[in-house]
């Protein structure tokens, strides 16, 4: 069986050996999954993870360091795995199944239920978990470890692939750091210091972190004195203060391409699949409906969750149900009015959809307030609403489809179609940010490399060939379009808001009078 369709390019012998080493590592994990009871779990876990890492490293070094620096996209559309061929589908099915088992049937991974000790794959990870936090592994620990290894090993590969490009290297180093430190190690250490604190990945911000304002979570924080209070305040400041400031200065990329773990995986392990995202206009339309629906859902769901555990009596706690709803509605109205006042023109036709979205949210919140009880919102149990969000959005959308479908939908399907955090950041990026991708005058040759490489499915070429800057809410600022452009047409930059959006008909280079005539109409 061959990896390349018309056998255009073979892989070298070193690469074959490296693949074999990596597969050996996976094989150990597979054996554990099928309940092989390894005598020395620590040793075999180390071997498995080391083989996977070493295989990836050796493969990448042979693939990239044997060639001169430059763009390394040869044969991506020939290789079965990266062009929705048989291998791509096989990988998609394997990943998807893994996610389904992980989220819904962790016992098949060997999770010991009701206090029983772990078996299978999860037990293989017990030694590492004990080392870090002194407790048994869970399915999330296994997942977190594999996730981190993937970002580190494939991050290394990505850095070699773009070794001529410091923007790519730095942001990859950044996501590797945040994954290893903030998502993986620090929460474990926090547990060691204070085992009552809820798991908290400091860089995971609401609404991506949809459970932070859940009752158990808030109670967990609040019952832990100042640390807990500090953490939950940090969570609130993250979304309402830090995020707007950084997004204003740098665009949403500061988060999506430099910090976020979902983005981190997409940019490293997901990199071979970035070209699979659909660039069709219809996909863009679907994207805008889906992502904003999820945003509405997540806002309403969060408000509803908080609402259910607040009281009516302002003497008991200053934040009552009435006050809370009033505050939320007031806040949303302020944003809505501000946008309509300052940005009405830029929004054009989208203003209508914005208004619809706003009124739907307000109507839902009022409806909830009028019909809701401590237990019920929208006539269902508050907990059920939250559970539905957790299953459909938190698990199925972000995990099963978002990552499992990498080889089919491309690496950022979740970031593009589902992530409510991306929706908020994108909204701000589109309207209040210095970030844009500048198009270099008339230099575009419409080749399409940029659009092809855009994991967010943005038809970058459509703008570049008109000499127009790219200001799109979905752009995560990965910078790959700029890297692959053979004519140096694109540059990600933070500059003044003026002239950021510059629709043109006649490009630079033609008769200046004609440009004036047509463009200044």
């Amino acid at each position, binding site marked *: 069986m061959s990896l390349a369709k018309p056998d255009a390019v073979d892989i070298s012998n070193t690469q074959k050996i490296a693949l074999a080493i990596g597969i050996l590592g996976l094989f150990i994990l597979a054996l554990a999954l099928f309940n092989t009871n390894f005598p020395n779990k620590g040793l075999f876990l180390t071997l498995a993870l080391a083989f996977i890492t070493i295989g990836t490293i050796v493969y990448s070094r042979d693939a990239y360091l044997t060639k001169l620096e430059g763009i390394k*996209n040869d044969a991506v559309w020939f290789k079965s795995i990266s062009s929705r061929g048989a291998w791509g589908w096989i990988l998609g099915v394997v990943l998807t199944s893994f996610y389904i088992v992980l989220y819904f049937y962790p016992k098949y991974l060997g999770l010991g239920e009701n206090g029983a000790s772990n078996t299978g794959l999860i037990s293989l990870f017990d030694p590492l978990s004990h080392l870090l936090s002194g407790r048994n592994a869970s399915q999330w620990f296994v997942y977190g470890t594999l996730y981190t290894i993937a970002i580190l090993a494939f991050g290394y590969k990505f850095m070699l692939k773009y070794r001529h490009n410091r923007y790519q290297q730095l942001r990859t180093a950044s996501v590797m750091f945040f994954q290893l430190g903030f998502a993986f190690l620090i929460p474990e250490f926090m547990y060691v210091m204070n085992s009552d604190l809820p798991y908290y990945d400091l860089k995971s911000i609401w609404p991506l972190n949809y459970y932070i304002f859940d009752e158990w979570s808030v109670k967990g924080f609040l019952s832990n004195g100042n640390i807990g209070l500090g953490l939950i305040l940090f969570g609130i400041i993250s979304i309402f203060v830090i995020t707007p400031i950084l997004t204003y200065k740098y665009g949403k990329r500061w988060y999506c391409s430099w910090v976020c773990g979902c983005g981190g995986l997409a940019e490293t392990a997901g990199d071979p699949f970035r070209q699979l995202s659909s660039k069709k206009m219809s996909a863009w339309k679907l994207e805008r409906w889906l992502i904003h629906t999820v945003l509405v859902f997540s806002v309403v769901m969060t408000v509803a969750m908080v609402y259910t555990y607040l009281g009516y009596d302002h003497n008991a706690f200053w934040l009552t149900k009435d006050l809370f709803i009033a505050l939320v509605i007031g806040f949303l109205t302020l944003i809505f009015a501000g946008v309509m006042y300052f940005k009405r023109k830029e929004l054009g036709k989208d203003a209508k959809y914005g208004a619809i979205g706003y009124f739907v949210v307000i109507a839902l919140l009022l409806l909830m307030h009028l019909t809701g009880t401590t237990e019920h919102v929208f006539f269902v149990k508050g907990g059920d609403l939250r559970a539905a969000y957790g299953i459909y959005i938190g698990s199925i959308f972000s995990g099963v489809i978002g990552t499992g479908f990498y080889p089919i939908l491309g690496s950022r399907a979740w970031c593009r179609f589902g992530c409510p955090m991306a929706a908020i950041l994108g909204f701000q990026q589109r309207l209040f940010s210095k970030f844009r991708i500048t198009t270099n005058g*008339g230099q575009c040759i419409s080749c399409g490399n940029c659009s092809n490489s855009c994991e967010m499915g943005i038809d970058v070429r459509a703008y570049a060939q008109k000499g127009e800057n790219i200001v799109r809410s979905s752009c995560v600022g990965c910078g790959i379009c700029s890297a692959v452009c053979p004519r140096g047409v694109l*540059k990600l930059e933070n500059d003044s808001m003026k002239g950021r959006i510059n629709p043109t008909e006649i490009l*630079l280079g033609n*008769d200046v009078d004609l440009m004036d005539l047509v463009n200044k109409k």
Partner: protein
Amino acid sequence: MDHIVIIGNGISGVTAARHIRKLSDKKITIVSAETDYFFSRTALMYIYMGHMKFEHTQPYEDWFWEKNRIDLKKGYVKHIDTGAKTLQFAEGDTLSYDKLIIATGSKPNKFGWPGQDLDGVMGMYHKQDLENLEHFAPNNKACKRAVIVGGGLIGIELAEMLNSRNIPVTFLVRESSFWNGVLPEGESAMINRHIQNHHIDLRLNANLKEIIADQNGKAKSIIIQETGEEIVCDVVGLTAGVSPNIDFIKASNIETGRGVKVNRYLETNIPDVYAVGDCAEQHEGINGRRPIEAVWYTGRMMGETVAQTICGNRIQYNPGHWFNSAKFLDIEYQTYGWVFSQPRENESHFHWKHEDDTKCITVCYDKHTNQFLGINTFGIRMRHDVFDNWLTEKRSVDYVMEHLSEANFDPEFYKTYESAIFSAFKNELQTV
């Protein structure tokens, strides 16, 4: 309602159509024999290299044409009857027009080499050439070596393409150094070395004498004129430039030279017939430009201009400052203004090259007035609008060198070289 017919669905014809549609409600038909839909010729190489599929090279989705009421017709025009205002197709049918835009592009040059029409010998211009290459050079087992004849922009792209499939390449270049009719010596020499670093067998001062056939009429080797050396190969790429694709027009009343002759309004000698893009030949080059400019950007600009004329705003084709770009394997090249391979009488060049041998610039200026005339940059991206302004403002070379960092367009966090360039420039002035 006027019926505008455009022969050729390349950048020039399509740009004209798009702008006519913006400006008017006229009926528009684009005719092409090559493909159903507009695609970007400049991206042909990336299909063979597997970076993209053919459909990704199409800048507009298929629904675009119907939505904008631009009719597409596939067919080969074999004759233009300007008297009856009718096109005759090789397929036998006809199409009448009120106004005609000829945008038929180029075709690869062939200089009458023996064996130039054998199997396995091809240019690299049309989509069919690419299919031909895919057929004869699918991998390095079917094609053990390829020879490329002609060291220009398309030749080096073809070399890169074959290289991506690990097919050994011999690259015959007539000149003493790669593209040195256009590039100054230092740049050209750097590209020579870069080509060789990619393990491409670069042969300078080498002309093709003939291509030799095997018993099946397929190329099996070539002979080099100068040395008589025979090089065994499976594929021969002919990339010795292009010329206007206008043979079928010669029998009509439309005046032709090397291309379709047009005036500054892009009008031919026949009323209501225009020509744009690679196939158009100005009676005289505009502002020091060549009469025929076979590049993407000029095709687009002519399309933008002719649309105005056809829609009632008759204006001259009056391109602004020259610019262009290309990529030599891994090294990007941009140029703004004029830098000739040899400084002209009143001109002087300043050349800077980075020690890693992948970045350099050449700045051309007027010796007497110090006016900045143009820049070539390799491995450093520069801003088009900044140079366009500087050229319009007739800035001095000292000003440009001092403010070079304002023009830098490299991605964020890249190492910058402007201060090194500036100090090299000052040093050179002192020693002169």
